[in-house]
């Protein structure tokens, strides 16, 4: 009885260890997800560390007291830590994405002395990540508290929020809709193509088809074309549902849809090429699923689809921005939300074409119709 149980246990353990998909979810994904979360939200607090630049144009004990209040607030918070940097107002550069800049006006101390009003400017990009928005809003509470401590019931210091986004700001829903559209296209274009091709290889369908009077390229082209059609339909349905069912502010003019369709065609081709390249030598569906999951999750979290790039360290942003899905979604947002034309997004288009070319080259070198 015990011996049988032992053998069954050992066999079950072996079967788990031989199952690549299970190993992926058990031993890879948690560490991957933890790494992403740590990168995004830091290790010390829920929202990680936020750079806060302070420009003191008043340079009085009262303004210094306000700065000390800012320091205290962001050093004692368990939700959001702040790196406070003092800037010289005259030589300060424009506010970068992901940074909150607080400008204390000259006459700040006098306003407190005279019980008159003064406005502290809080500038940040409204399109930045969640932590930047939270940090900016902390100033509301912080300033109210400062007013109460310094001027009793009088509220001389008020806040003026300034959006530093140079283009039309995305709201959160627009950001999510466009990100999820590309995410859906990754599933249909990249993952489904890769797993589909490997499945046909595993079932020896390609081997059989290669004996029919069909060219292999025609068969592969049919796979790609069919998926391209599915991509288009899925993207169109998502946009319509997002616009009219979820009431997401999406100015869908025919011209914008036409531009978006052109971009979706290019982006879809890139994703399909990636799927074909990934499937090149894989002979088992289980392996293909693992490869697809790794690529899919990396792109999902690291290419501005669901988590803003502003959440990532400055040093890795250029690399993440070069990812095909980051280029795709950036151009898509520019066209769908900000009304750009597809031609004006030529940098993203060039990048997508380059990714497609690289993937096709990899496919050419590695692709096998069957395992034998």
């Amino acid at each position: 009885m015990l011996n049988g149980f032992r053998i069954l246990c050992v066999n079950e353990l072996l079967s788990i260890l031989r199952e690549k998909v299970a190993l992926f979810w058990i031993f890879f994904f948690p560490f991957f997800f933890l790494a992403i979360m740590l990168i995004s939200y830091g290790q010390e607090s829920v929202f990680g560390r936020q750079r806060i630049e302070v420009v003191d144009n008043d340079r009085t004990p009262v303004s210094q007291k306000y700065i000390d209040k800012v320091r205290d607030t962001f050093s004692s918070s368990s939700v959001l830590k702040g790196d406070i940097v003092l800037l010289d107002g005259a030589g300060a550069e424009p506010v970068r994405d992901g940074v909150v800049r607080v400008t204390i006006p000259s006459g700040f101390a006098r306003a407190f002395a005279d019980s008159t009003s003064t406005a502290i400017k809080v500038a940040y990009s409204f399109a930045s990540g969640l932590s930047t928005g939270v940090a900016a809003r902390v100033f509301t509470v912080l300033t109210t508290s400062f007013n109460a401590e310094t001027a009793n019931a009088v509220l001389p210091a008020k806040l003026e929020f300034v959006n530093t986004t140079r283009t039309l700001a995305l709201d959160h829903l627009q950001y999510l809709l466009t990100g999820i559209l590309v995410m859906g296209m990754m599933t249909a274009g990249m993952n489904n193509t890769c797993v589909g091709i490997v499945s046909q290889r595993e079932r020896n369908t390609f081997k059989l088809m290669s004996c029919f009077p069909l060219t292999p390229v025609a068969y592969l082209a049919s796979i790609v074309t069919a998926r391209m059609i599915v991509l288009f339909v899925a993207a169109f349905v998502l946009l319509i549902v997002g616009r009219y069912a979820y009431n997401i502010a999406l100015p869908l003019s025919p011209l914008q849809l036409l531009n978006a369709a052109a971009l979706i065609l290019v982006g879809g081709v890139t994703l399909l090429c990636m799927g074909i390249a990934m499937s090149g030598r894989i002979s088992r569906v289980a392996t293909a699923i693992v490869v697809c999951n790794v690529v899919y999750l990396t792109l999902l979290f690291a290419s501005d689809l669901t988590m803003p790039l502003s959440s990532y360290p400055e040093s890795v942003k250029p690399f993440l921005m070069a990812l095909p899905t980051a280029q795709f979604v950036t151009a898509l947002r520019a066209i769908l939300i900000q009304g750009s034309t597809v031609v004006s997004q030529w940098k993203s288009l060039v990048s997508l074409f380059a990714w497609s070319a690289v993937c096709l080259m990899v496919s050419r070198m590695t692709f096998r119709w069957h395992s034998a």
Partner: protein
Amino acid sequence: MSHHLDESPSEPAVEIDSLRLSTDRFTVRMNGWSVPRGACVAFVGHNGSGKTSILDSLLGLRRDAEIKARLLGQDVAAWRRRSDLRRRLGVLLQRAAMPYGLYVHEVIALHRNIYGRTSQRVLENLGLPDLRRKSYEHLSRGERQRVDLFFALAHEPELIVLDEPFTGLDQRVAQVTADLIEGLGNSTVLMACHSELELSMADTMVWLEYGTVRECGNPDVLRRRLLGDFRLEISLHRESQANALAAAIGELAKPQFVQRRGNTDLVVAGEEAVVRAVPSLVAPADIVALQYGRTTLADLLYRCAHSEALPEAVPGIAPLPPISALPNMTRMKTDHA
């Protein structure tokens, strides 16, 4: 099988100048071998003897094969490049499925579309109209084999390559399929086979053992030469009696073939006098059943399926004597059909 060997044009249907393919256990080799047009050739041998490897190599499906061969006068490599040539080919592969998600009527439409013609006779004889509304994925093994056979035969190709065509088929459908293939009199058929019915269609049999052609010739001729014309199946009460009889036969009677089937049964094949002498080697009271008859192609397949080098791999089968020890047997390299 009544394939029209006398009508074949001067050019053979299949010519193998040389074929070499290394597997992890042995090397498959065939040299200077050809098949006339209209012939039906059956490759037989134990599992893993190289039958499928040879067929796959001829179809250009093995990258690791070193092959110089022509099919219907065209180099093997040309068949990979030219889809027009592949219109003349019908193929049934092992463990190869149609594209995922199709219904049978869509498979039929696919065939009609890519070959331009679909034989109604093949369609109906294989019973595909009854399967039209079924999903290919949900077919039973036999039903799926019928669909795959339809795809290989329905355009009545000049060259047909079938890897175990009757696997999973019931006796009735197997017979119908055999009739269909025999009806394609001008087609040349190459097949890997394991059943008596499959072998009965062949006018040439190639016995492979670990990748090497051990015998090649007409199945009936080989049956008589390898087994003799007569067989005796004897059933005894106990295993020890069967063991003793097997030992006695080996020493005294010198039959051409002795086969253990189960613990207490033996099949002895050879000349009539030898076979008739076997019962005298055992006490009549030990005999449960005794059956004389002519050797069959099933006996021949049984013989060819049991390699002498790996007897322990087949439980319940007594080790065979080395082939050189068998009477009236000489090793043949290649006997052109």
